[in-house]
């Protein structure tokens, strides 16, 4: 069926069955390959995007459920100051190894900082527990979230 999606502040028409997971619509139909496939079961977070500002796992989100809602993918993460601060902190600390999980990590981190501008370690644990990094970049992710929070605070 024909659907209209609002992705990264643009309206996009797409042809897909309503029960198709958003992940495959983004990746296969729209060429937005920043969201990654890691498990297909909501277990790893590699496919995370924002829907109405909240992190969702696109591998288990039917595209029909997000029609008309505002979707932000990693490709649009740099459009807002929190996204830019997180990306900058990631680079400053050399967080990525293979980088495959990092789009999902960044989207989860951005959502955390939007809801909780000054996260504690416990907040970070809770917000990031759903994102697996097999390369083991967790210590730097934690440090980078704190750094982004600080930069954002100082910019306020």
């Amino acid at each position, binding site marked *: 069926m024909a659907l209209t999606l609002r992705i990264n502040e643009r309206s996009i028409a797409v042809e897909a069955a309503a029960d198709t*997971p958003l992940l495959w619509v983004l990746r296969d139909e729209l060429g937005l390959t920043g969201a990654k496939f890691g498990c297909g079961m909501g277990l790893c977070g590699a496919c995370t995007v924002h829907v109405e500002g909240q992190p969702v796992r696109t591998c288990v989100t039917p595209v029909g459920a997000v029609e008309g809602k505002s979707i932000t993918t990693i490709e649009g993460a740099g459009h807002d100051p929190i996204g830019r601060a997180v990306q900058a902190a990631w680079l400053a600390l050399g967080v990525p190894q293979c980088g495959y999980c990092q789009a999902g990590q960044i989207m989860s981190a951005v959502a955390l900082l939007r809801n909780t501008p000054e996260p504690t370690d416990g907040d970070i644990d809770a917000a990031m527990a759903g*994102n697996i990094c*097999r*390369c083991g970049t967790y210590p*730097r992710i934690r440090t980078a979230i704190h750094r982004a929070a600080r930069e954002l605070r100082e910019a306020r």
Partner: protein
Amino acid sequence: MTQSSATTPPGAVSRPCDAAAESEQLPSPARRKVLKGALAAAGLVLCLRQSGRVALAGAQKYGAAGEPGGVVDNPLVFVAIHPDNTVTVTVHRPEMGQGIRTSFALVVADELEAEWPQVRVEQAPADQARYGNQDTDGSRSMRHFFEPMRRVGAAARMMLESAAAAHWGVPVSEVVAERQKVWHHGSGRKLSYGELAVQAAREPVPEAAAVRLKRPEQFRYIGKSSSRLIDGADIVAGRALYGIDTRLEGMLYAVVARPAVLGGKLAHYDAQAALAVPGVVKVVEIPSHPLPALSYPLGGVAVLARNTWAAIKGREALKIRWEEGPNRHFDSQRFETELQQAVRRPAKVVRDQGDAMGVLREAGRRIEAEYYLPFLAHASMEPPAATARIVDGHCEVWAPVQDPQGTRDLVTGLLGLKESDVTVHVTLLGGAFGRKSLADFAGEAAVLTKAMGGTPVKVTWTREDDIRHDYYQAVALERLEAVAGPDGLPVAWLHRSASPTEDATFEAGAEGEDSSEYGMGMINIPFRIPNVRLEIPGVPAYTRIGWFRSVYNIAHGFAIQSFIDELAHAAGRDPLEYQLALIGPPRRIDPRTLSDEWNYGESPQRYPLDTGRLHAVIERAAREAGWGRSLGKGRGLGLAATYSFMSYAAAVIEVQVGAGGKIDIPRVDIAFDCGPQVNPDRVRAQLEGSCIMGLTVARYGEITFRDGRVQQSNFNDFPVLRLPESPRDIRIHMQPAGFEVPLGGVGEPGLPPIAPALVNAIFAATGRRIRRLPLGTQLADWRA
């Protein structure tokens, strides 16, 4: 960001492929076996296996020279300077998170006197004749190519200097290249690299002996700590392209149903319901290949569709009957019993020194223990995926592969093409850890595009496919026996290591570890023990065995470092002091005197086992961790140290064991000596990652088989460490070393000490000895 182009840009310091180094292939004792595709009748690919079992003949070549393709250090192959003043460095080793694209580019840029912001990286396709060895494993990219890449950069710099001198008509001794310009001393004139590009490309390439390298104190990038990553900006913006991200015009998306049991074959299938799934285009059978498995596709039924989701749904709708073959009864629990039996009787002796058996027989008291490591899956975050198409008889593959040439040989053989008709483009790898050394998934894509008349096909593995059809880290059962002398130090040591060999993936019936496998941390123990006997039982493999980051070092390190801790406690001595006493005074041991003929393929003169360096990392880790400090109830410190891939690593883990066996790791101290660090920040990153992967091995990793089938499927039943469980504080302590010291490996050697350090810490905290990995719920009954 990096533009791939088949043609050399005008004005580049680059000529057509005229100077690829001749590469001699000798039987290599490298742990990675060499696949040589050769076409035989009926389209079968023959395999020439070269492994640790092959007796060495003729002059031994070490390091990269001993690897297929050897070393190429021609600047025309690796460097292009463009009139716009940018510099392209071609990186021939795949990037899987170790940072090699950044690190090679830094090395070349430094010697070239290029400015980092002007540097671009291009990934080389598979072509070992042109680029030298590309098989990226064994922690040896930088170890083998640091010097060649320095020569590449320095030679290109000299060509730029010659071009400038010729342009100005002055002697070359009067010019100097610095910061992307060549300067003339006398006149102060200068030309940018971009301005010199065309002329420099025509200058003769200096002889290797004439290449002037920098002195280490002149380095601008090498050895300097910086978080710069050549692909960093693309990664954080979601622009970096991995194998699974490949998209071609008109491409079909494939998902494959494979036999659940290794060696199984398709008996019958019904595609009707699959074909009725909207978006499904075709169902194609992939032929299976008789065992041994090699890197051939496993065979099965592929569903090709307009998108990945339709292909997944289509596969669910397939009705398939399999003929399961000889491995259908494999049961890993029963196999554990077989392994136990195997280590309890005499086996093939691989090192025998003094009379260990006699001393053990006579001894009043023996200390003995058995340690178990299960099968492990790699579970790289990017599952296997590959894309292929055929245009005018030429097959192109895009794939995240560690062994580009091996992939090219595989596709060449499978499709019955000439090598020159196969191009393998190497994408970024979303993690690999050894899994992507064997590119069966790329073979699938090649077979499918051929079946579709050349239409581009991308094969995507689901996580379930990945977990169930891996080349697994081998299960291992390690038995150790010792007799302690009056000081508690062992006077006799017996170690039997029962583990299926990776060779069995290449050669039907191969049994027990080969010399490269027991060469990983078992045979080369450098302890001062007068009577040592090491034995390898011949145990079979019933599944595909592969290489997992640090490979057999995991089981050996776990067993030996746990056992030493047990011996120390049995002797009533401090484990740190005990291990240092066991290692003894500093000495540089020729590995051959330890019956280690392999030595990771490196020269025994250049890379002796230096017990002083081992001693030093242990002391450093212990000191930094505050070894001996008093800890509260349920807390403990554990120590372990290993030597692997020419590097020395020691870890001290602090653990807190709470009620119900809840594990908390407030701090890990790792001391590491890999010789000089070319890119210190990436070395640290690898050690942090190895620590976390090592903790997954220690706490969670386990693949089991029943009825020949893998019982796990996804991250729900094959859990890996997550952020909240990650140590809060991982401190990496690098041992300083000058650039005269040969480089050690980095990607793998941080992993082996982690699991034993954790179980030793658990013992210190609870008095419970964990001899079986993973830890899982073994401490569930613990009350804090």
